[in-house]
């Protein structure tokens, strides 16, 4: 049956995809409304609030992807560029930068970020892959040193580099997937890879959340997360693999390949979220959108972290495995 789906044309597949995504969201929202009609204990309400926040974020995310789809590759690149900008803004807000970092930050926001997305838009994938890890890695500390403030130099520069790496480099791989072309496939196929990646990452995240709640298992690193256990992670990666296999018809992959890719991307995504947790513990906020934090950060970083970590791994494995130019 899944093979039948594969032979639909691209437009039909996309339509079907959005019907599935919005249908699931609608079902969950309606179900939640019905469940919410009766009185509940306060503990349940607290958990429910968090659930609703996640649900709202998913609605916004789904609507954004729909917008990205109807606005084509240029629109999608621009859209991810804006998300990148907002995420980096949030990251830098919580980083220990000083006055001397002003020029480096200007470079990060107004030169590095736009250039990286221009490289994506032009499909200069070779330069795109090395621009930040090689050239920006070199340029930022030079700008920092020229500003002449040695205090906590390494810490400041490292956090700027890291912010660029996660929020710009990582996220820019999502639109890069859009523009990847496969031999023998109609162009525009890449859009499905982004869907594939997002679906796989979301499934991994949801399963991870649910599994760590129900399976009370020994956490891997108690200091960082009390709920992140090896079993929950394996379960979430497996679920992501299965979801990937179910959606193989939208990708150029065969079923087994889709399973492997889902496993890889889902696993990388949840690990990325785990890393973000460590980072948040370091800065001292429970989640990025914490009210008690210095700023009114909206918690966007939380949402994009799995994507920012999964996208580069996914992109480069696809490119390497299929030997794409």
């Amino acid at each position: 049956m899944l093979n039948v789906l594969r032979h639909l044309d691209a437009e039909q597949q996309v339509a079907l995809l959005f019907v599935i995504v919005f249908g699931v969201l609608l079902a969950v929202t309606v179900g939640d409304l019905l469940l919410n009609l009766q009185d509940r204990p306060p503990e349940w309400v607290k958990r429910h609030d968090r659930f609703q926040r996640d649900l709202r974020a998913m609605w916004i995310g789904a609507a954004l992807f729909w917008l990205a789809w109807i606005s084509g590759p240029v629109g999608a690149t621009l859209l991810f560029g804006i998300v990148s900008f907002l995420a980096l803004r949030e990251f830098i807000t919580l980083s220990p930068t000083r006055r001397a970092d002003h020029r480096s930050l200007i470079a990060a926001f107004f030169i590095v970020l736009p250039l990286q997305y221009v490289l994506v838009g032009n499909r200069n994938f070779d330069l795109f892959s090395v621009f930040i890890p090689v050239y920006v890695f070199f340029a930022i500390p030079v700008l920092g040193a020229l500003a002449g403030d040695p205090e906590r130099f390494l810490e400041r520069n490292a956090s700027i580099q890291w912010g660029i790496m996660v929020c710009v480099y990582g996220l820019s791989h999502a639109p890069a997937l859009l523009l990847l072309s496969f031999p023998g496939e109609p162009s525009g196929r890449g859009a499905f890879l982004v869907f594939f990646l997002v679906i796989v990452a979301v499934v991994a995240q949801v399963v991870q959340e649910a599994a760590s709640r129900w399976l009370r298992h020994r956490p891997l690193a108690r200091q960082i997360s009390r709920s992140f256990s090896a079993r929950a992670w394996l379960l979430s990666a497996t679920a992501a693999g299965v979801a990937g296999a179910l959606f193989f018809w939208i990708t150029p992959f065969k079923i087994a390949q889709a399973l492997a890719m889902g496993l890889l991307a889902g696993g990388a995504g949840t690990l990325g979220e785990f890393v973000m947790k460590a980072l948040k513990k370091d800065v001292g906020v429970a989640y990025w959108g914490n009210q008690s934090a210095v700023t009114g950060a909206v918690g966007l970083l939380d949402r994009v972290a799995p994507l920012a970590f999964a996208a580069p791994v996914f992109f480069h494995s696809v490119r390497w495995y299929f030997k794409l130019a």
Partner: protein
Amino acid sequence: MGRLLAFIARLITGAQGHWKGCPPEALQRIYFANHQSHLDWVLIWAALPGELRAHTRPIAARDYWTASPFKHWLTRAVFNAVYVNRQRTDENDDPLEPLVQALAAGDSLVIFPEGTRSHGGEPQAFKSGLFHLARQFPQVQLVPAWIDNVQRVMPKGEVVPVPILCTVTFGAPLSLGPEEDKRSFLERARAAVVALRPLVL
């Protein structure tokens, strides 16, 4: 134009308004805040809901803000600023006169009672203008505000702002006590602003 500017300010700083002590209402108010950067006014202005912006006016030094056509246009057409003279030319001139006129006309004002920009940390002692306005206009609400993080967006001497999230926290309105003298009122007002400062992590 105003909308565009407010949008840019929000894009760069977030300009989040946290209304802790009072809701954003169309009441006549004097907002008073700590002063760390040229962007302070823009930030408060952008944090206000759109419909309040038109009737909330900044104070601008006449000599500086009318010096070039652009500055003049920006303060007059976009912000509807109240111009004040920094140098007193006549002994009998009241420097607060333009502010009094604006308040009498029903507008709200944003003032920075420190007078000049302070370098991060604690705000300096407040100047007495706030006290005189409070005495003359007892019906106008005095709303303290703390602007946070803005010094990181544009440090002194830089021209390009860096996108960093800032917040404006609005506190509960104060009023001048019947017997309260100038010094204790200004100290109380300053303490009200400092109390809004978010906890540093």
